[in-house]
C-alpha cells in the first residue's frame, strides 16, 4: 500500500480495473435482485408456517413470530373429522389416475410421433384442442352422463375412469419427447422382428423414462390440485372429498383461527413439495418440453 511500490498505472490496467469494478457491481445488482425475488417467493411459506404453530389466542393477533410453538396444531388437524378420509381419497384419485393416464397415453403418443398414417395431423390438432378445452365447456353433459346413466356421482370414479382413455396433455407431452427418439433404434428393433408393441415396451419406454416421469408427476399434481372435478361430482358426499376440496371448507366448518387452517394448508402442500424435491430434474425437463420446440 505504500507509494514506493505502486507503479504508474498503464491505460490497460485502468481499463481492466474499470471492467472488474463493473463486473462486481453487476454481480451485486443481480444478486440483490435475486435475493429480493427470493423473499417474494419464500416469505409467504414462512408466514404460513409461523402462523401454523401459534396458539389460538395469538393467531387472531397481527403477531408475526409465535410466542410458544404449538406443534400439536398439526396433530389436531390430522385428527379432524374427515381429514384422513380426504387423504385416502386423494391418494386413490391421484395414484390410480396417474397410472391409468400413463398406460393409456403412451401408445397414442407413440403412434402420433412415429407412425405415418393419413389424418395424423388432424388427430394431433384434435389432441391439442382437447388439451386447451376448458373443463367447464363440457361439464353439463358429462355430469348428466355420470349422474343419470351410470349413477356414479358422489364418488370420484367420474374423474378417474376417463383417464383410462388417454389424457390430451400427457399424449402431447409424450409425443413431443418421442419425436426426439432416433428412428434408427425403432427400425433396428423392427428388423430384429419385434412387434410394434414390443418395440414400444423394450426400446422406446426405457429411452422415454424422463418424459414418462414428467407426465406422471404432472398428472399426479393435477389430480392432487383438482378442485372443480370433486366439486362437481363429489360435493354432496363428504366421504368422497379430496384434500383440495376439503381444505376449501376447512376454515368455516371449524370456525377456528388461522393457525389450524394454515397447518392444514401446509399439510396439503407438503407432499407435492417433497415429491418435487425427489424428482426435480424430470419435472423441469417436462415443463421445458411443453414449450414450443420447432
Amino acid at each position, binding site marked *: 500500500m505504500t507509494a514506493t511500490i505502486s507503479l504508474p498505472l498503464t491505460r490497460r490496467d485502468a481499463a481492466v480495473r474499470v471492467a472488474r469494478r463493473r463486473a462486481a457491481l453487476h454481480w451485486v445488482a443481480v444478486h440483490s435482485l*435475486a435475493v429480493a425475488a427470493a423473499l417474494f417467493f419464500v416469505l409467504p411459506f414462512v*408466514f404460513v408456517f409461523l402462523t401454523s404453530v401459534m396458539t389460538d389466542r395469538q393467531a387472531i393477533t397481527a403477531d408475526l413470530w409465535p410466542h410458544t410453538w404449538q406443534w400439536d396444531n398439526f396433530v389436531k388437524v390430522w385428527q379432524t373429522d374427515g381429514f384422513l378420509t380426504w387423504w385416502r381419497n386423494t391418494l386413490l384419485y391421484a395414484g390410480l389416475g396417474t397410472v391409468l393416464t400413463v398406460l393409456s397415453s403412451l401408445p397414442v403418443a407413440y403412434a402420433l410421433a412415429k407412425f405415418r398414417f393419413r389424418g395424423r395431423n388432424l388427430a394431433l390438432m384434435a389432441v391439442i384442442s382437447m388439451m386447451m378445452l376448458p373443463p367447464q365447456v*363440457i361439464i353439463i353433459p358429462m355430469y348428466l352422463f355420470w349422474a343419470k346413466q351410470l349413477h356414479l356421482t358422489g364418488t370420484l370414479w367420474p374423474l378417474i375412469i376417463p383417464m383410462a382413455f388417454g389424457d390430451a396433455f400427457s399424449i402431447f407431452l409424450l409425443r413431443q419427447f418421442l419425436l426426439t427418439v432416433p428412428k434408427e433404434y425403432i427400425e433396428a428393433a423392427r428388423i430384429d422382428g419385434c412387434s410394434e408393441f414390443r418395440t414400444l415396451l423394450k426400446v422406446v419406454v426405457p429411452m422415454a423414462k424422463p418424459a414418462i416421469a414428467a407426465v406422471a408427476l404432472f398428472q399426479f399434481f393435477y389430480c392432487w*390440485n383438482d378442485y372443480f372435478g370433486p366439486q362437481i361430482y363429489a360435493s354432496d358426499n363428504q366421504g368422497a372429498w379430496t384434500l383440495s376440496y376439503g381444505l376449501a371448507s376447512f376454515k368455516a366448518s371449524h370456525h377456528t383461527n388461522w393457525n389450524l387452517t394454515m397447518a392444514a394448508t401446509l399439510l396439503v402442500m407438503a407432499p407435492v413439495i417433497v415429491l*418435487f424435491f425427489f424428482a426435480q430434474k424430470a419435472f423441469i425437463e417436462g415443463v421445458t418440453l411443453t414449450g414450443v420446440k420447432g
Partner: protein
Amino acid sequence: MALVGTPVPAALKRKRRREALRTLAFLSPWLIGFAVFFAYPLLSTAYFSFMRYDGFSAPTFRGLQNWSYVFTDYPSFWQGLRNTLWLVVVMVALRVAFGLGIGLLITKVKTGAGVFRTLFYLPYLAPPVAATIAFAFLLNPGTGPVNALLGDLGLPTPGWFTDPDWSKPALTMLAMWGIGDLMVIFMAALLDVPKEQYEAAELDGAGPVQKFRFVTIPNISPIVLFAVVTGVIQTMQYYTQAIVAGKVASGVIGGSGQQFEPGYPNGSTWTLPQMVYNLGFQRADYGSACVVALILFVISMAFTSLLLRRKSGLLASED
C-alpha cells in the same frame, strides 16, 4: 402419386391393412376418449343450449330463449365477462412480463443459481386451493402480515380480497407468485439464443438494452407468443382461485357453496366458468349453463387456433 393407376400388389395391400389396424390399435384408447369425453359432450352442450332442462322433466325446445336470457336477464353476465377480460389482459400481461424478468434474472445469477431456481419455482407447485387460502391469510386486512408491514411503513392498507377494487389485483399477485412454469420455459429459451449473435452485436457497439431489443426479443418471440396464448386460454378457465378467495374472504365456506355470495366481494371475482357452475348446478338451468359454456368454447378455440398454425411449431414432426 406416380403409382396411381398401377395395380397394387396383394402383399403390399395386406401390409398396408396390417399397418392401418396397428395404428388403430395404438390410437384406440384415445379414439374412445375423444368420442365419449369430447365430441359427444360438445354436441350435447350445443343441443342443450337450445333446450329448457332442469335435470328432471324431459328437455323441451326453447329456441334462442336461453341465449337472450343469458345476454339480457342473467344478472351478472356482463360483469363476469368484464372480469374475465380484465384478468385475461392484466394477469396474462403481468405474468408474461414477470416470468420473462425472472427467467432473465436466473440466467444472470452466478452464485447459488440452483438454489434460487428452486426457490423461484416452488410456489408454482403449491396446490391452488392451498395457495389461495395462504394468500387470503397473508392479505387479510385485520391481522395479515402484508397489511401489518404496509402499516408499519406508513403505506395504505387495502382490503385486498374483501375490497371490490383490490380483489382482482390480489388474485393477480397470487398468479405472479406461481410463475415457476413460465420462468423455466423462458429460461430454456434464453439459453437457446446463439451466443455469436450477442458477440456480433457487441462488436457493432450495442449496449445491454439494444442487445435485448435486437437479439433476445427476436429469438424468443415464438416462446413469448406461446406463453401469451396458453396464458389467455388458462385464464379463460380461471375458476378455483377466484371461488376459494371469495369463499375464504367472505367467511362463508359451506361445503356445497349454496349460501356463498358468488363473486365476493360485490361480484368482482365473478368469471365466465363460475357462471356455468352457477346456472347449471345452483339454478338447475342446464340450458343457459350450456350457452355460457359455448361462449367459453368459442373464445378458447379462437385462441387455440393460433397455436395450431405451422409457425408456432406445436405440429412440427420429424418427417
